[in-house]
Structures are given as C-alpha cells and as structure tokens.
C-alpha cells in the first residue's frame, strides 16, 4: 500500500480492511462504472456530442434539471419550516411526525410512483378537485404573468405530465433538507438569539439576520442533496410523468429508451454525462459540508 502516508495507529487490520474495501469498491462500483467510460471512448467527439446533445436530450436535461431544481427549492422552503417546527416546538405526536419524515427513504420508489398516480390522476382522491384548480391557475398565470413562458404547462394535467414529475421529486427529496437542517438547528445556541433580542432586534430581524445565515450552509447542502437525487430518480417518476418526448421525458428514461433501441453507445453516452454531473454535485456537497462544519467551529 504505497498510499499509506502516516499510519499513526497501532491497531491491527489496516491492510486487510483497506484491501477488502478497495477490492469490493473496485469490483462492484469502479470497474462497472469504468465500463461506461470505456464504451464511450470508442466514439469520436462529434459522435459523442451528437449522442448527448440531440434536441430530445436537451429537452430532457432542461426538464430533469429544471424540475429537480424547482422541487429542491420547494423542499428547501417547506423542509426548513418542518425542521424548525420539529426542533423548536413541542406538540403531541412530534416523534411520529419526526419518524415519518424518513418515509421517502424507506418507501420503494415504485410504490411512491403508483401511490402518487392514484392520488393525483383526474379520477384520484386529490386530482379530482385539484386538477381543475391547477388548470385554471395556470390559465390565470399565463394571462397575468406573461413574462414567463407558460406554454409547456398550459393545459397540463397533474398526473401523467410535468406537474407529476414535480410531485414525485418533491416527495423523494423532502427528507434530505429536513435531516441536514435538524442537527444544525438543534445545536444553534439560544444565547445568540437572546443576545440579538437584548440588543434590540425584533423577532423578524433575529430570524433573518441571525438564524438564517447560521442555517444557510446546511440548507444549501440539503438542497443540493435533494437536487442530485432528483436528477437521477427513475422509479417514481416513470409512473407519473406521461413520458412524452420533448415535453415530459426525463433523462434517465432516455437512457432506457436508447438501450431498448439497441443504441448502447447512445445510452452509455448519456450515462456518462449524468455520471460526471453527479460526481461534480457530490464533490460540491462534500465541500459544502466541510464549509458548514468550519463555519460552526468558529
């Protein structure tokens, strides 16, 4: 192990555990992932670009990124409130609510997908009355907020359309924000707020100028995690998306579609784009986490 620079520990088993870890990581993750890169390395740059930048793919990137972003923003907002309520308030059933926040981690995505369909389809419990409201709302927005292009949303349904993707990704992403914020919120020292109050800040000023900046790194981390997960999500989305090319087709679905049309290279090229993206996001998240830790040590 030439990478061992400083083995300060006298504990035995370093070679064994590191060797096993690297071997297992290599066999299960790295070698299979490298297959994707090697497969695309046979393509010329022009071929690669053609494969990953077709109009249908561009539309799917816009959709996957756009809706993941939207869902992550909504989760950052509501997740923030949920975390605040769970940490700061006492109310009967708080433990149950707290446990429930992890449901999207534990519930299989396919189950979430069909459950959301059953709820939000036009003949579903919620869709029945919410769908007309949604359609009306978008119509109203399109006439009153003309500077945003509503064409992609006009006449859309809740389920089997773009809003369905948003619903699924919001469901999937919620725990990330809550669970990254919770510990930071709990560690927040009341003295800080008390000091602010003593110095004459009103509650609103304390919230926005003292608490919010403290929470920001964790909030961004949670947001980034929810966003990264949203981009790759497949199971829950395919059931509810409608899967219409150029309109409601997510990028992971296009990988499957390409694969099913014998276009292995095309499928792999898209996979490589997504892999690089997720790796970059992961690096960003790790950096953010380091930043937030340092931030709090000060």
């Amino acid at each position: 192990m030439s990478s061992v620079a400083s083995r300060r520990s006298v504990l035995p088993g370093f070679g064994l555990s590191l060797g096993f870890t690297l071997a297992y990581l290599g066999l299960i993750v790295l070698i299979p992932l490298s297959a994707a890169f090697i497969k695309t390395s046979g393509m010329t740059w022009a071929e690669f670009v053609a494969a990953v930048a077709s109009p249908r793919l561009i539309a799917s990137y816009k959709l996957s990124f756009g809706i993941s972003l939207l869902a992550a923003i909504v989760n950052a907002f509501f997740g923030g409130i949920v975390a605040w309520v769970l940490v700061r308030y006492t109310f009967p059933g708080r433990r149950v609510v707290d446990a429930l926040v992890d449901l999207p981690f534990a519930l299989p995505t396919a189950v979430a997908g069909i459950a959301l369909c059953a709820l939000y389809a036009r003949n579903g419990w919620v869709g029945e009355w919410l769908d007309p409201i949604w359609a009306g709302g978008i119509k109203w927005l399109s006439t009153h907020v003309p500077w945003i292009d509503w064409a992609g949303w006009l006449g859309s349904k809740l389920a089997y359309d773009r809003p369905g993707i948003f619903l699924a990704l919001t469901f999937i992403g919620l725990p990330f924000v809550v669970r990254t914020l919770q510990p930071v919120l709990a560690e927040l020292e009341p003295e800080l707020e008390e000091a602010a109050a003593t110095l004459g800040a009103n509650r609103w000023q304390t919230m926005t100028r003292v608490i919010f900046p403290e929470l920001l790194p964790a909030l961004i981390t949670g947001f980034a995690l929810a966003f990264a997960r949203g981009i790759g999500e497949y199971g829950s989305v395919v059931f509810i998306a409608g899967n219409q090319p150029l309109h409601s087709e997510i990028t992971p679905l296009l990988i499957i579609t390409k694969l099913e049309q014998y276009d292995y290279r095309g499928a792999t090229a898209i996979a490589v784009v997504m892999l690089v993206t997720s790796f970059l996001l992961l690096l960003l998240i790790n950096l953010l986490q380091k930043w937030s830790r340092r931030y709090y040590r000060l």
Partner: protein
Amino acid sequence: MAGPATSLAAKPARSGAGTPRVIRNPLWVRVVFMTLALGFLACFLVLPLAAVFAEALRKGIGAYFHSFADPDVHSAIRLTLLTAAIAVPANLVFGVAAAWCIAKYDFRGKSLLVTLIDLPFAVSPVISGLIYMLIFGLQGWLGPYLGAGDHPWFGEWFNQQDIKIVFAVPGIVLATIFVTFPFVARELIPLMQTQGNDEEYAALTLGATGWQTFWRVTVPNIKWGLFYGVILCNARAMGEFGAVSVVSGKIRGETTTMPLHIEILYNENNSVAAFAVASLLALLALVTLVLKSFIEWRHAQSRPAV
C-alpha cells in the same frame, strides 16, 4: 442517498421545550409554521401512504388477501427476500471494513475514498443497471464468454457451466448491491470517528488480539449504528426498482422482484393486486421507520448528549 443526511452520529439530543421566552416566536407565527409544516407533510407523506392501503383494500379485505394467492407473487416475495439476504450482508461486511480503515487510520487519498463510496448514492439507478448490462450482456464484454457464449477457447466450457448473470438472480443481486452499497459504511464512518481508538488501544494493551478487540470492544460500541445502517440498507434493497428493472428480463415467477411485480400488476389493470403487494412494501417501510426511531431512542439513552 440517505447516508449523508440521516447519520446516527450526527443526530443531536433535542431541546425543544426549554426555549427561553424572549426568543420564542409569537403565537401566530407558530400557528402558521405548524400549519405549513404539518399540512405539507400530510399532503406529501401521509396521503400517498394512505392511498396505498386504501387502493389495496378498495374491493374489500377478501380481494386484498386473494391477491396473495398468486404463485407469481409468492415467487416475487421470495426473490426480494433472497436478494436482500445476499445484498445486505455483503454490504454489511464491506461497510464494517471500510469504516474500520477510514475511521481508525489516516492515509493519503482517504477523502477520495469516502467520495467514491458515496458515488452510488448519486448515480441514477438506471445507470447502475446499464453498466452491468454493458459488462454481462450478451453484446457486452464478458457476456459472450458466459452462458450462451460461443467463444472459440472458453465457449464450450462456459456453455456447460451455464453461468447467467443478467436476466437472472445474480444480476439482480449485483444491481441491488450497487445501489445499496454506501448505506452501512456511511452510517459507521462518522460513528467510529467520534468514538476514537482509545478503547481499542486499551484492549490491545491488556493483551487482546486484534479479532478479540474487534468483536468485544468495537462491535458492542457500534452495534446500534450497525443495525441502523442495516435496516436502511434493507429497505432500499427490497424496494429498488430502476436498477433491477434493467437487468431483470421480467420473467414472471422467476426474475420479478416485488417492485417489478407491482409494475406488472399495475399494467395488467390489476390495481388492487398491485397495491396489495405495494402495501407489503409500505408496511416494511413503516416497520423500518419504527425500528429506526427505536434505535435513535436507544442511542440517545446509551450515550447522553454531551
């Protein structure tokens, strides 16, 4: 991707009740916050969960139980259990080994290793299915040598062995291992890091062997974290859809796991049966949550907040 966010080690002891007065929000703010938070959770978490059970029981309890009479459902349940029974222990062993070398030692490239371990969280499940297809598919790298291959040198021999990877149980297990890869490791690393090495040193000084130290000192210290990682890993292993659907081949009664069978039933207009199977997985999710809360509670009991 649960790891970074739900780590047991990062879980603080909560102090909700004793908030001093001056920094409490006014009543109306609290009411608004509570309404928003609980309303949001009700819409996004409780309703879908309720929908699963309501749809499953829509035609009565008889129809619900009748859904489980189908032998294909039995085989899907068996396959799901089997997959989890292999994937979870495999990742458990890996998780302990990885946490041991990462938490107990310092070495160059450690943070890169941690990032690589996290990678499967960030990779779309579809991609994890695809890469195994690239390797083990008949048009892939190793596929031609396996099973139905007719490689000039090894073809004959491998033909007789008939090793099936994709479209068979091994492929499903591999894909599942991939997507559940980081759960145990992610759980143990921070926990073991905060615990430090002192107890292990003490044991070694007192003459214990390495294995004895591991089993008698380390394992008791990390057991709740271990259990915690295992139940999360298990929940994901049983529920994985995207990765498994790519490598399954959807042979009824043979290579369909429960989530895949749900899709099949759903597409067969058999929504009661689809939701009935889904309700089993939803129950599993609820049990997971209960166990998880229990572990957090035990953890808080055994290690009072500093």
